């Protein structure tokens, strides 16, 4: 296992210590349970948007803590949902009279743990469950669609709404709206290695790729021979477009995401192809995000996310944000 770590069991705690040292102006880190909180939290009369989940997806979620995005993030162990008391601690640190919106990615563990925290909370708490992964085709015979890339877009837009002073109802409505208009799909070229497991989460041949992967090193729905960038982008984009569906004339935000080890040079290349394919279908890309934002440790691969914009979503997207990973 090739990693820059000390004890595998200490990875998350040590990483958070480094994060606290790196961004003293933006955030503070509480330990035991681990919670990353906006430096100026609680922010009076503002809805606190709180998210979290297993670690290993950095910068998601802690890298999005700050002005215009998350009030707090709750990092669990690597690929393992945090516990309810950690979520409760995040609620306690950020609730400031306007309630809390929990952003939960749809995994059994995350849903159960956040649900428990919400039940136990004595303040006004709403939950939105992100489930944008079109790779999960059959929601009845599965745990339902996973929350993946769409999570970042939702956190940004709802965080902007909270910053602006919108109330919990409005923030929750916006969150549901983003959730209903966002779709993603991902591919892996290599598998990630969980520090405590010490070996790659799946075995992939030198000329193979895994299509429809999640972000936890779960194998995808099927394996296929490695293709050119054109082929890969098409395999991701087509099912995303057809699912909502996105139609000619729609205005969208295109998010081209690296799963970790796929470098920017490849990611921009893929992004360019996706822009061209969308243009060919008459779908208008109005905003974009390109980078490693929802990762799976050192996995090579990428995902594409499309969000159907409307004026309000676009306008909120553009408002100032100041976090370690997103800033404008």
């Amino acid at each position, binding site marked *: 296992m090739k990693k820059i770590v000390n004890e595998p069991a200490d990875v998350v705690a040590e990483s958070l210590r480094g994060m606290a040292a790196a961004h003293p102006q933006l955030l503070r880190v509480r330990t035991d349970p681990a919670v990353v909180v906006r430096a100026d939290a609680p922010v009076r009369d503002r809805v606190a948007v709180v998210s979290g989940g297993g670690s290993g997806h950095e910068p998601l979620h802690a890298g999005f803590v700050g002005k215009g995005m998350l009030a707090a993030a709750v990092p669990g162990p690597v*690929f393992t949902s945090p516990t309810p008391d950690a979520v409760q601690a995040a609620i306690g640190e950020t609730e400031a009279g306007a309630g809390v919106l929990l952003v939960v990615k749809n995994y059994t563990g995350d849903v159960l743990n956040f649900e428990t925290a919400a039940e136990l909370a004595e303040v006004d708490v709403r939950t939105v469950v992100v489930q944008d992964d079109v790779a999960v085709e059959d929601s009845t015979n599965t745990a339902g669609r996973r929350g993946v890339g769409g999570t970042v877009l939702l956190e940004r837009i709802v965080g902007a709404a909270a910053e602006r002073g919108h109330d919990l109802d409005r923030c929750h409505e916006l969150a549901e709206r983003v959730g209903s208009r966002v779709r993603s799909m991902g591919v892996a070229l290599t598998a990630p290695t969980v520090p405590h497991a010490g070996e790659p989460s799946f075995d992939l041949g030198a000329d193979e790729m895994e299509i429809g992967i999640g972000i936890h090193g*779960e194998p995808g729905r099927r394996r296929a021979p490695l293709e050119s960038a054109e082929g890969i982008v098409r395999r991701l984009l087509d099912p995303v477009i057809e699912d909502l569906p996105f139609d000619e004339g729609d205005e969208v935000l295109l998010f081209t995401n690296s799963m970790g080890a796929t470098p920017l040079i490849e990611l921009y290349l893929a992004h360019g192809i996706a822009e061209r394919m969308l243009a060919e279908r008459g779908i208008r890309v109005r905003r974009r995000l390109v980078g490693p934002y929802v990762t799976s440790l050192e996995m090579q691969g990428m995902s594409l996310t499309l969000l159907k914009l409307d004026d309000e979503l676009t306008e909120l997207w553009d408002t100032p944000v100041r976090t370690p990973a997103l800033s404008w």
Partner: protein
Amino acid sequence: MGDSMGGCSTRDVIAAVRAGSEAVTEHRDELVRLDREIGDADHGENMERGFRAAVSQVESAPSETPGAVLKLVATTLISSVGGASGPLYGTAFLRAASAVGDVTELDGTAVAAALQAGMEGVTARGKAVVGDKTMIDALSPAVDAAKSAAGSGHGPSGVLAAAAEAAHTGARNTEELVARKGRASYLGERSAGHVDPGARSTALLLGTFAETTGVRR
């Protein structure tokens, strides 16, 4: 496996928890490997962390009844495991604790009732049914076996032995199933051919509880 009509004391329950912790530590890599095949490679890590924490809680805060021990295990699992298995096992122990109330010794019927309550807790939270390839596939036959053993007059160790045996079979049978709950469900048909890690850990724990209870008598 021998049987005994002796009740299960607080001390016995504590011993079982300790043995359970040792068992999941010993089988950590196996559970990680199973979860690596069809999940995210952390089930062994999660179980080890949770049961270590439970043992340290149980050993530091003296509990007066079996129910109190089970409750402490429940809250510790909930606050230290995370993932899907944390709330599910946590709820199982919590419901089991409620089911046994504040008696100071558990007889066979009480153990069977605790198992049944535990399973109902898992079902309430996780919504899985038999055949979904989850811990329910170990727990459900275990509960049936436990109830019938208790019905035919067995004590705790007999009830647990019957439950464990059924759980082992149930876990082994998950191999051929296609998952419909939890992370493995994303794999669709590809989830078949692998034993479910949660079912395996359930069988492992029940087996250990049965052994400890049997040995101590």
